[in-house]
């Protein structure tokens, strides 16, 4: 077993905790999922490292890419968005770097392939994703003066919309959007409208 794999396995719990502690600085996680959610998050985060380790062992980033896409479908249906997962992978990469694991370049490459694989490749969701920057600009412009919003929440809002378009299920977007002033969500919808489906999007599950 490589020095990186040994070190990764030895540090897995600590790395996982570090990543989640950082993500849970956003109070939304605890508000939305509570302590029970943190328990599942701990399990999932360790699974990310297990699959990273499996990809390292096989010297095949595709192992992690397949996992990322599969897990996205599991988590999006349970109320998370693609940006949450991508952020977890990016923070894990940073945590590995700051911990100084040996020969860690391969791990960074695999994790980068993982979050890159979360980009939609076709359909309206891919078209919408290509417009992420204008979408973010539109909602920043629409924020009322004096309203302080976390930058990561803006990214999540856009990600929820894109996932909703991809899955045809908008309930999770609407739930998250309720945190924002109406004008912000309207601005997002208006900017996204060329890529939103003509037919009303299903919204039956919270």
């Amino acid at each position: 077993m490589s020095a990186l794999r040994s070190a990764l396995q030895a540090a897995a719990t600590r790395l996982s905790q570090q990543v989640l502690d950082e993500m849970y600085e956003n109070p939304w996680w605890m508000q939305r999922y509570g302590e029970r959610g943190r328990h599942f998050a701990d399990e999932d985060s360790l699974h990310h490292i297990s699959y990273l380790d499996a990809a390292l062992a096989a010297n095949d980033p595709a192992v992690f890419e397949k996992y990322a896409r599969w897990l996205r479908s599991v988590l999006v249906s349970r109320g998370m968005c693609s940006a949450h997962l991508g952020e977890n992978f990016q923070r894990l990469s940073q945590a590995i770097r700051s911990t100084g694991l040996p020969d860690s370049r391969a791990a960074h490459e695999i994790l980068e392939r993982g979050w890159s694989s979360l980009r939609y490749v076709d359909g309206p969701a891919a078209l919408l994703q290509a417009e992420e920057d204008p979408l973010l600009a539109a909602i920043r412009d629409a924020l009322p003066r004096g309203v302080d919003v976390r930058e990561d929440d803006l990214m999540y809002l856009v990600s929820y919309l894109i996932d909703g378009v991809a899955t045809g299920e908008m309930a999770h977007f609407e739930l998250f959007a309720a945190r924002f002033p109406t004008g912000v969500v309207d601005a997002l919808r208006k900017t996204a409208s060329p890529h939103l489906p003509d037919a009303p999007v299903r919204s039956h599950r919270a």
Partner: protein
Amino acid sequence: MTAAEALVDARNQFLAAQLAGDRRRAVELVSALATRDRGSLFAIRSHVIRAAQEEIGRLWQENQITIAQEHMATAISQLALAELFGHEQPRPPNGRKIVIACVEGELHDFPARLVADELDLAGYEVRFLGASVPTDHLLSFVTANRPDLLVLSATMAFHADAVRDAVRRLREADRQSPARLPIALGGQLCQWVTTLAHELDVDISGCDAGELVSQADALFGIAS
């Protein structure tokens, strides 16, 4: 209704019984299908039970059922497979013995059981060891039973190391044996880690039970 439509209908009825937790209904359904057409056992196993099980997996993935419901449905599939086994009329014994085991840590034994039942039907003498067989005990069992083929099954990618460890130790044990033991790799792990079969230089690999039976037949020169 065509034969294909009848299988889809049967799958839907079986799935409904699984979701309702109605074990008796599921078993009665499989039994009635098998009694009506003994030549359709492969189709029942593949297009009714396995297909319903795949749908159960999809429903869990999409958060439409819970883990508890998924486990309940899987237990019903296991029961249905046992019922179907009672209807089997296997081919005459071909004289080959096969051991099938999930590697240490792997709890998903449903795919391995499908393979075990198909191999049994094909005339092999099957020893099915089920889920998560500790590698030490697997080696002891193989040494004591001297099969013609060992099938290692795994589903999750993070069990690839358990497969690597088992194959390495089996190969070491081969050095004290008169003949090299052929090894097959089965289960969804083959799809997660597509390079593993080549890396380990196993004799046979595949995710599908029918595919593994065909390869075993080819390995032993048995006409399918």
